[in-house]
């Protein structure tokens, strides 16, 4: 997992290794599973509408399957440029 911006700040780490159980099939499932594990994850993921994701560095919707991805990123809507 990699986190950016205020998601990273609320969780308190920029990256972490996780091993979710088999029933965690989508990125949304993964977010639910992480939020149940710690208050800081729960705080970071409280407002699901303000979260975006990337799977192996490519933007995907939250309902995208994990599909054996090596790297999942969770972050707020982007504000560059």
């Amino acid at each position, binding site marked *: 997992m*990699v986190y*950016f*911006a*205020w998601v990273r700040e609320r969780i308190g780490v920029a990256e972490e290794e996780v091993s979710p159980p088999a029933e965690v099939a989508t990125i949304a499932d993964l977010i639910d599973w992480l939020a149940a594990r710690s208050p800081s994850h729960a705080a970071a993921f409280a407002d699901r509408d303000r979260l975006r994701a*990337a799977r192996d*560095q*490519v*933007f995907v919707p939250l309902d995208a399957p994990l599909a054996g991805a090596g790297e999942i*990123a969770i*972050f*707020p*809507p*982007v*504000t*560059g*440029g």
Partner: protein
Amino acid sequence: MIRVRVSSAPIDIAAEMEAAEAEEGGAVATFTGLVRPDDGVSELTLEHYPGATERALEALAREAVARWSLAGATIVHRVGPMRPGERIVFVAASAVHRAAALQACAFLIDRLKTDAPFWKRETVEAGHRWVEPRAADDAAADRWRS
């Protein structure tokens, strides 16, 4: 030719312009975004997603080159801390005719705002705050999808 760079170094406009003008075009359109000195912001910090950022910018530049038959496309984005008046981003499109250069330039900056993983954090007297996305940016990016 496609030039994409993400760096914490200040953006050298003269060098970027020279490269864009060296393309076999004749028409060069550019956009430069600067840190605005408003709202009591003393510093702006750009965070990004290394690897994914470059990939997103390259895809954007390639799409512009294909769509408007550009001679060249440049996207240079600064990351890290910067002060009011400094350049955040520079995009350029080189083409044979000006309409292609102007439209591609607008496309590059509009889509960069929504498609590339950058996040702005403002340092103010009370601490810092993350910049919220603007609905106008989504609308501007959407007009290029068709």
